[in-house]
């Protein structure tokens, strides 16, 4: 006969404390605008990203070390949003960063980047070299005439 193992009161309290900590961090993040660059729920790390706007195009770059190049995915999730995803070659845990008071592991990178000007996402070109992703998006041209 299988007997279900009872969880101890300390396990239950630990889970409540973990839920409360997560809620508190999310709330503080929403108020201050500062959010952690990791998410243990989705096992994702947020990569460093930059957006450069030139006359002809918008260049989005992301630092993706320790990633498998074939796993890099970039897609437009809205008119002005670009989502970057990539799987890591090796899973990372908080311990790998020397952090012992948190638990969780990370297996991928994920971020959303806001594009400040209208772009043509259909003509996006991607380059990945030295672990740095470059997405080139041509700008949409809007011709305007001077009125008399």
């Amino acid at each position: 006969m299988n007997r279900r193992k009872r969880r101890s009161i300390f396990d239950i309290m630990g889970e409540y404390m973990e839920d409360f900590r997560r809620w508190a961090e999310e709330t503080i993040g929403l108020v201050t605008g500062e959010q952690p660059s990791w998410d243990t729920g989705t096992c994702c790390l947020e990569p460093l990203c930059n957006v450069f706007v030139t006359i002809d195009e918008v260049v989005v770059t992301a630092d993706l070390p320790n990633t498998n190049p074939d796993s890099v995915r970039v897609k437009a999730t809205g008119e002005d949003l670009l989502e970057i995803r990539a799987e890591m070659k090796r899973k990372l845990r908080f311990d790998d960063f020397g952090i012992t008071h948190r638990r969780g592991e990370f297996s991928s990178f994920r971020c959303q980047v806001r594009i400040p000007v209208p772009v043509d996402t259909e003509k996006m070109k991607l380059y990945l070299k030295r672990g740095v992703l470059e997405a080139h998006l041509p700008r949409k041209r809007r011709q305007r005439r001077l009125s008399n």
Partner: protein
Amino acid sequence: MPDRQNIKDPKVFGAASNASVLKMLQEKGLEILREGYMVGPQALVMRYCAEKNLPAIALLAQSFYNYPDPEAAAAAIKELTNITGLKVDVSQLIEKGEEIRLRARDIMKRTQNEMTRMKKSQEYDLPLYV
């Protein structure tokens, strides 16, 4: 630099606070920074050293300016070993480059936010030379 991805071996440029130190760098085979300008703490140190005629050098490696770049750091250290004769092993710095980039991610993010707050982007404006 914008096309750092395409550079396998980052070049290192030298700058010095006076002519004799600059000559020494040239004799060691280092390429001298002839164009551009320096900013930040190292520029300030160099300026004070030039004013007081203290010998000082700056080694500037081609690097990502917005991402951690252990390869560029290794290139600068290699040049330093060439100049001073000190032996420094940079193999681990290169081998563990990806790990260092991951570890430096959050501090770099904080730096980027601070740079935005300080309007650091002015650094990239075209200067007015007279």
